[in-house]
């Protein structure tokens, strides 16, 4: 599934395992995806499907141990991140790849001013003087829509609201003009109006700055609004991957279909119960030997319980990891 078409970020067969007291947890299993410059890739999946762990693995932001990247190639801008030195990795972190985290309430250091925290990456990566960094920090705050930016640099995180704090996080992530921005559920902890504002902001910034974005979320609505391409994750694997329009119009994985069905519809009769996917997400204590979704899948048959389906291409830029073929209405034959 390697896409060499000038991808800025190319991940092949990434595998991350956590060692716990009760054995290993296979959080990410052979995940492959690529990201082209300026593109927005959405990653959807339920809690525990390995979305965040995948992204944290890219920059080794997971606590190691217990986490361990067991195999795979993470190619960023032509170099394999797994092979480079710590120093080079630090140059990429915050410099070339910016990170926004889920909870803005806890992601900023409470005892330092917002200015201090914003100036830090500027001084480290861009080598700016104190004064120049401060000036740039004020510009960044202005860029993310914080009014009265120069004065607010002196404020502490607790003096900002949740939405404003997430704007600060975005400013920090964007501080050094990264080529890639990884946004790990950046709007999940925010209420809906603030969420809409942040989405608008990201769209606008993307046009202005032109970086590639990986947007992790469990909210299909958000994906439909901003993503170019979508990867659906289940149990640490990418089960379907397509252009956003194609995915919503023509979902090929039973899990994607089920997910889409769970969305409440505007024109639905009132009082109908919300659809849900029966069963529980699987235990991740082993490498998958069968289709992990098969116990919950209405289409599952013999083969699904014996073999883990690999991603197969359906059309260009649309692939799915499933043995069932919806076009023919029967098992897919390789």
């Amino acid at each position, binding site marked *: 599934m390697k896409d060499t078409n000038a991808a800025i970020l190319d991940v092949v067969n990434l595998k991350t395992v956590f060692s716990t007291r009760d054995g290993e947890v296979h959080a990410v299993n052979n995940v492959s995806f690529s990201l082209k410059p300026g593109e927005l890739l959405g990653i959807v999946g339920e809690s525990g499907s390995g979305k965040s762990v995948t992204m944290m693995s890219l*920059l080794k*932001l997971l606590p190691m141990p217990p986490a361990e990247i067991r195999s795979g190639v993470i190619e960023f801008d032509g170099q394999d991140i797994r092979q480079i030195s710590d120093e080079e990795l*630090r*140059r*990429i*972190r*915050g*410099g070339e790849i*910016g*990170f926004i*985290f889920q*909870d803005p309430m*806890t*992601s*900023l*250091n*409470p*005892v*330092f001013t917002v200015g201090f925290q914003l100036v*830090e*990456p500027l001084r*480290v*990566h861009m080598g700016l003087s104190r004064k120049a960094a401060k000036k740039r920090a004020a510009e960044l705050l202005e860029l993310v829509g914080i009014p009265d930016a120069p004065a607010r640099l002196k404020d*502490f995180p*607790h003096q900002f609201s949740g939405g404003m704090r997430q704007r600060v*996080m975005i400013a*920090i*992530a964007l501080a050094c003009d990264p080529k890639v921005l990884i946004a790990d559920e950046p709007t999940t902890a925010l209420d809906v109006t603030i969420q809409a504002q942040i989405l608008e902001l990201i769209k606008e910034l993307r046009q202005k700055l032109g970086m590639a974005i990986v947007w992790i979320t469990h909210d299909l609505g958000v994906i439909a609004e901003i993503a170019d391409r979508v990867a659906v994750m289940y149990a640490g694997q990418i089960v379907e991957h397509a252009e956003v329009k194609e995915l919503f119009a023509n979902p090929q994985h039973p899990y994607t279909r089920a997910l889409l069905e769970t969305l409440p519809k505007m024109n639905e009769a009132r009082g109908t119960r919300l659809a849900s996917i029966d069963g529980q997400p699987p235990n991740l204590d082993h490498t998958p030997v069968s289709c992990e979704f098969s116990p919950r899948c209405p289409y599952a048959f013999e083969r699904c319980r014996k073999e883990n389906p690999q991603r197969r291409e359906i059309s260009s830029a649309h692939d799915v990891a499933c043995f069932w073929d919806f076009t023919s209405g029967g098992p897919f034959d390789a």
Partner: protein
Amino acid sequence: MLNYTLRRLMFTIPTLLLISFIIFIILDMAPNDPTGNLPLTIPPEVREKIRASLGLDSPMYIRYLLWCQQFFINEPLNLFNQWFGWCVGDCEGRLRVTSWATRSPVVDLIAERMPQTLWVVGMSYVVGILIAVPIGVISAYKQYSWFDQIGTLISMIGFSVPTFFTGVLLIVIFSVWMPNDSVFWLPSIYDTTLKVVDWSSFVQQMRQMAMPVMVLALFNAAQISRYMRASMLDNLSQDYVRTARAKGLKEKSVLLVHVLRNSMIPVVTVIALGIPQVFGGAIITEQIFKVNGLGQLLIIGIQGADIPLVQTLTFLFAVLIVLFNLVADILYGFLDPRIRYE
């Protein structure tokens, strides 16, 4: 902040009055007799007169009020007179709180012994902190490593083995087993008369301080390093640490700027709350090494039923405890921007 501090200072007045009253009552109820140590040949009538001369025949509340007047008005004025030469009122004839046993003013006794205590106990506190903070930081960062395990073991030992044991152990090793001409030989008796005037007397001072400081520093470091470790561990798993790493900061700045600054908040409070104990002296350690500090003074006072001395010392400790509680609260406000005292 200033407003808050002033208000808190106001609150300390009734607190301290109450404490002084309680100290006074308790000591009054104690079955002590200042004439108890006098020869048995002194007849009871004479003993009665001695007690009367000490003011013990008047009712308790009168004695308490007189003591308050003496302690809160006369003694501070005496101190000013001594320190700055300011004379307010009758400087010559003003009463002093005097020790029953030695007949010298209690304040002078305390002033005499304060330097030894501050040197030895204070130094051990400083050394303890200097040892504890790095140990706590490294132990937490390398949790469950051999460094952490050994650090934990030493902390447990320092915490649980009493100072009278470690003190005697050190004496046995460094004063008894060690040959007298060895550089590692250390004196087991603290010589208060030693004056530091040149290099060799300074070295001698350091040598005689070494053992009591080691004993107390081990105890202090054991305590503080555990706080430091726990606080670091709390903070290391916080989200902002991940943010700092994601910004591409060096591990050193992540740890020593972001995590340490947060972790120091509770530790500084603990350190501030421990300072009154420095002034209180280390009763047992001072006894072992014959350091004639405040702790030893208190013991002598208790043994000799020297109520004015015990009263004054106990109350002084109470003042320090109340004061450093306030200091800890104010420090908290400085260190943690989220806390605002309005």
